[in-house]
């Protein structure tokens, strides 16, 4: 326990407190206050801006990748090379352009996975809202929380440093023996691997913090099944983070030893086994796919329920399916390696893989049934939730031919896989994340955003996304391998469409960006509960006061009792209750 600043007398009422955003010191003092804060809200906001910046960096790389793929590289009849955008003038072989392309897609993958999507929802929205939704004043270990933020920052600095020094061309998966031999004279690969290793610690500590918070800091009256589904999702996510990340830790450590000291564990020349690396890597990286998607699912449960003013259908089924997904995620990693394993292992992993489909399908069915007889508002968060259902269903269903062995042998490492995981990761997590940011934006910053601009942005992103990635399903089945800087002419039409789509996505995100900036500068002040939500974060001010709640929170209703409870701070005329002629359904 800290010895510093023990002047604060213990009290349980915080009537005169200002918003957590109110600067209390001078300019430098405020910066220092934010840098040393142990307030989960400030840490969450810092994470939010950091991961959005990483999303921007990774997005620029993605746009560049799509730009290069606008045209195939061709050898013309006179021997000249056409279609290569990245090659510097006067380059005499296609090699240079390919090297740049390979660095760009690695940059895109590594940033998006390690620095954006893994920390995205849990570290930003999770940090901000997990204690609020539990009715707690902070996470269990506030200083550990600050520590893991700094680990995240230093890991990201390592990653960016390796990019500045010339970039890495291993692909984000760092497959050996390529990753242990490429760029042998440089430190860049080591730096990037180190970055992933360090970021893993941040992930572990955040997860650990959330698990303990959920166990120990629930407000009086809140049982496990009174928790919002967002908390259930973050809780399941945290379990995966804590259990899977150490394995990537040791794997990356071995990879670092391999590069530095040539220890030979993954080096076939010394009797080591590169497939062992793949097993280790996917033992982490498959569960981490659910670290990415589960929080997004949690957001969707909140969004659908609040904006359709309807008790979530099958609360327990959704909560348990989160845990079910977390459990199954640990036994399906082999499906990334069907082309590298024997028949028996492939068969076992294929069968187990289909298990994941079951809890996922249950969730989708429950979400859609939640809409039945709702009072459905069409606004930006709801549009994003509906987009999520559309895109994530496609992402999930295209997993079926990838899980079936005969079809996977064709589709493995093709654009079909690229499209599939973008539908899940971007169409799932990113769409949910952006929807969640809109949903909670008034609470976080105390300002409303422009609804029309938000909906325009959502529609642009939705159309652009489908144009970009729907085409890639067809490219994949037709035979286009992934990670290719160039391709045969026959694939050009679909590639061009895909690139045009990426520009539409960019336009959509720019609309959101300007909308958010406008909201921060000139947005109307947000009421404490603009959507009529029943979870605890809507009971406090917008933005929340420094200690979250004015009084000790006592939970008196479930998070989704829209049939019986008028939302806090809301007028019954705006949020009328249904006639109670039949007993209200309980979950």
């Amino acid at each position, binding site marked *: *326990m800290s010895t*510093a600043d023990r002047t604060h007398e213990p009290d349980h009422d915080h009537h005169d407190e200002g918003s957590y955003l109110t600067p209390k010191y001078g300019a430098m003092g405020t910066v220092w206050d934010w840098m040393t804060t*142990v307030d989960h809200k400030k840490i969450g906001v810092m994470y939010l801006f950091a991961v959005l910046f990483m999303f921007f960096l990774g997005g620029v790389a993605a746009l560049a990748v799509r730009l290069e793929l606008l045209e195939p590289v061709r050898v013309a009849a006179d021997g000249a090379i056409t279609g290569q955008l990245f090659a510097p003038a006067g380059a005499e072989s296609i090699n240079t352009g390919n090297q740049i392309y390979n660095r760009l897609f690695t940059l895109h993958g590594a940033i998006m996975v390690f620095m954006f999507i893994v920390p995205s929802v849990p570290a930003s929205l999770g940090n901000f809202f997990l204690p609020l939704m539990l009715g707690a004043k*902070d996470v269990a270990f506030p200083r550990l929380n600050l520590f893991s933020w700094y680990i995240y920052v230093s890991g990201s600095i390592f990653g960016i440093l390796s990019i500045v020094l010339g970039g890495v061309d291993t692909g984000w998966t760092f497959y050996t023996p390529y990753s242990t031999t490429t760029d042998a004279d440089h430190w860049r690969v080591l730096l990037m691997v180190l970055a992933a290793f360090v970021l893993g610690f941040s992930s572990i500590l955040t997860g650990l913090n959330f698990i303990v918070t959920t166990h120990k800091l629930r407000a009086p009256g809140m049982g496990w099944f009174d928790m919002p589904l967002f908390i259930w999702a973050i809780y399941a996510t945290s379990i995966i983070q804590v259990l899977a990340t*150490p394995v990537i830790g040791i794997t990356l450590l*071995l990879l670092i030893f391999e590069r530095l000291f040539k220890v*030979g*564990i993954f080096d076939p020349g010394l*009797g080591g086994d590169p497939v062992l690396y793949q097993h280790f890597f996917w033992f982490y990286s498959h569960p981490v796919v659910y670290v990415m998607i589960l929080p997004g699912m949690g957001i969707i449960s909140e969004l659908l329920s609040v904006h359709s003013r309807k008790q979530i259908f099958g609360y327990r089924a959704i909560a348990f399916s989160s845990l079910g997904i977390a459990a199954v995620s640990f036994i399906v990693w082999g499906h990334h390696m069907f082309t590298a394993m024997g028949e028996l292992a492939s068969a076992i992993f294929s069968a187990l893989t289909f298990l994941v489909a079951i809890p996922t399908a249950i969730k989708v069915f429950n979400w859609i049934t939640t809409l039945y007889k709702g009072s459905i508002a069409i606004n930006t968060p709801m549009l994003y939730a509906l987009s999520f259902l559309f895109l994530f269903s496609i992402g999930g269903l295209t997993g079926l031919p990838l899980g079936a062995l005969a079809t996977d042998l064709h589709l493995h490492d093709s654009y079909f896989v690229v499209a599939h995981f973008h539908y899940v990761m971007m169409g799932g997590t990113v769409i949910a994340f952006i929807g969640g940011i809109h949903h909670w934006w008034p609470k976080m910053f105390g300002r409303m955003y422009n609804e029309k601009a938000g909906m325009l942005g959502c529609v642009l992103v939705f159309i652009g996304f489908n144009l970009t990635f729907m085409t890639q399903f067809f490219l994949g089945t037709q035979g286009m391998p992934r990670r290719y800087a160039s391709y045969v002419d026959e694939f050009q039409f679909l590639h061009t469409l895909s690139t045009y789509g990426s520009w539409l996505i960019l336009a959509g995100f720019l609309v959101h960006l300007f909308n958010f900036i406008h909201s921060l500068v000139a947005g109307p002040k947000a009421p404490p509960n603009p959507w009529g939500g029943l979870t605890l974060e809507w009971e406090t001010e917008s933005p929340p006061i420094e200690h979250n709640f004015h009084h000790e929170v006592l939970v008196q209703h479930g998070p989704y009792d829209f049939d019986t409870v008028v939302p806090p701070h809301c007028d019954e005329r705006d949020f009328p209750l249904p006639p109670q002629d039949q007993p209200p359904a309980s979950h």
Partner: protein
Amino acid sequence: MATIDANKPDLPAAGAKSHPLYWKNRGFAHHFRNADEQFDACKLGMWLFLTTEVLLFAGIFCAYAIFRMLYPDAWAAGSHHLDWRFGGLNTIVLLFSSWTVASGVRAAQMGNNAALIRNLVITLICAGLFVFIKLYFEYIPKLSAGKAPGTFFSYPYAHDPHEPLWWSVYYIGTGIHALHVLIGAGLLSWVLVRAIRYEAYGPTEYTMVETSALYWHLVDLVWIFLFPLLYLIH
């Protein structure tokens, strides 16, 4: 730390007893409802962290098992180069230190600061002894004989082409374990310093002693698995 408060009874006393870290002066962080809840949370956090440590070592054990299956001869040959007596001695040292650290926790709970300090000092000596034996009797002679990992392997009388791989697994496994011994010793030293300076631990406040001790038991536990796998099974 602005948001971490404490219940601070007024205790006009001299020396350590007036210090806010003295165990009777200690409160709990403002976001917990009481000290018990804070203690439980810290302990749960430590157990979760230990789980991650177990999984970290699981990777090494997994590599050990797979290569043992692939190259049993190299593993047998490599194992014969290890002297079970040094490994056994280190096992005894660590087991003994686990006992002393457990006694330390007991002493803290009983409010016996002198016993706590004594037990921690013995534990730290054991940690030093362990690292000394590992370095002086095992690593240094082996490395100078060329029994080094991977491409550094230059031992001229090797029986099996895959022996370098054995040494890689040996050095990585025991090396990362030794690193954990040092981290554990660092934690216990911190506890020791606060126990000496402030009498920071007593019946109502022994979270840090308990969690550090848990970590130390994990270090011990990992060695209990490493020792037979590396030294005893041929």
